[in-house]
């Protein structure tokens, strides 16, 4: 079945997708390594303590400021190292969206640069805005 409306920039899209795939994979590998390191450290230190998650206490686990987490992680706090790994993991798809905005802009596809920017702004609002 012959079609004439095939997008002219197909090759570009493919290249962008390839780079994006690599970006995502690397992000996941790096964060998994950090989480694993923090986890091993945690088990070595607190392995004998009991662990319970039956009751939900919102304050117990709510995220401390980014600066506090980074600082604790640098001082070898196992839980904070895990948190850094998890934050890297969450940042990975956000980086992918940011990269897509740039890629669409380079392809001179203004419509999709704007649509992707909307997705990015929603993510930023969720992560840094007042959304609770």
């Amino acid at each position, binding site marked *: *079945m012959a*079609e004439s*409306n*095939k*997008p002219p920039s197909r090759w570009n*899209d*493919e290249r*962008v*997708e*390839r780079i*994006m*795939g*690599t970006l*995502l*994979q690397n992000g*996941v590998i790096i*964060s*998994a390594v950090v*989480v694993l390191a*923090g*986890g091993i450290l*945690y*088990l070595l230190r*607190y*392995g*004998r*303590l009991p*662990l*319970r*998650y*039956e009751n*939900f*206490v*919102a*304050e117990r*686990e*709510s*995220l401390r400021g980014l600066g506090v987490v980074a600082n604790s992680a640098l001082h070898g706090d196992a*839980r904070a190292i*895990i*948190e850094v790994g*998890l934050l890297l*993991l*969450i940042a*990975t*798809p956000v980086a*992918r*969206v940011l990269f*897509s905005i740039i890629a669409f802009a380079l392809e001179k596809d203004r*419509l*999709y640069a704007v*649509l992707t920017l909307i*997705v990015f702004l*929603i*993510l930023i609002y*969720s*992560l*840094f805005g007042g*959304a*609770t």
Partner: protein
Amino acid sequence: MTTLLFIPLVLLGSFVAGLLGALTGLGGGVVIVPLLVVAFHVNIKYAIGASLISVIATSSGAAAAYVREGFSNIRIGMFLEIATTMGALFGAFLAARLAGGIIAIVFGSVLIISSVLSMGRGHGEKFTGPPDRWAIRLKLSSAYPTAHGPENYKVCRVPAGFGMMFGAGTLSGLLGIGSGAFKVLAMDQVMRIPFKVSTTTSNFMIGVTAAASAGIYLRRGFVAPVLVMPVVLGVLAGSVIGTRVLVRARTRWLRIIFALVIAALGIEMVYGGITGRF
């Protein structure tokens, strides 16, 4: 239970969940929450927090493999992500406000529906009519590789698909799952996008959708780092191996067994929710 016993057990359970999720295409998220809640007595809010983070990992981890095959359509994905991320924000907003029992009932119902969806039902037939005007304006039509050269496809009912994607995003944010089955339903059945393109594009979208709920989950204390650690690592390892095996394995029977397990877990969740166990 001591930490030294709890963590390896959760790791093992998550590994199996990730493996089965990849083999059946349903994703690990739908099993991990009932597993944590029913077997490990984890509060449902911590369970969906851990699941949501593992969903980001598997989606991003698998993306590279899918992208190489050239099936996913990033334009369709990006456009629909506007709907899924807004839905995810709304879902997480609800999760922060609803009681655990209600979330369990919704979760159980979604499990039962997913199980039924995964059982039978052929894929949507190839759409041959004219694409709708949104599809043209948004340049959604494209092509995907087949054994006999690239195959073109057109897209229809874009507004309906967009609306359904908001719903899929809401479920993702409310339950901490990828809601891949519902994303595929919207693309394959409603927008008539070829099945292969629908599944790979859906996988691509899941990570971004989940990231949109993550902010609220983090601030509301749903993400318990020490619990999330074995869940993320286990599900990720399981799904990576599952995706490798997928190429060779015959998954029909596995799929049916898995569907039955999911249905049973769904009934258990609904029952537990109604009797006030969560």
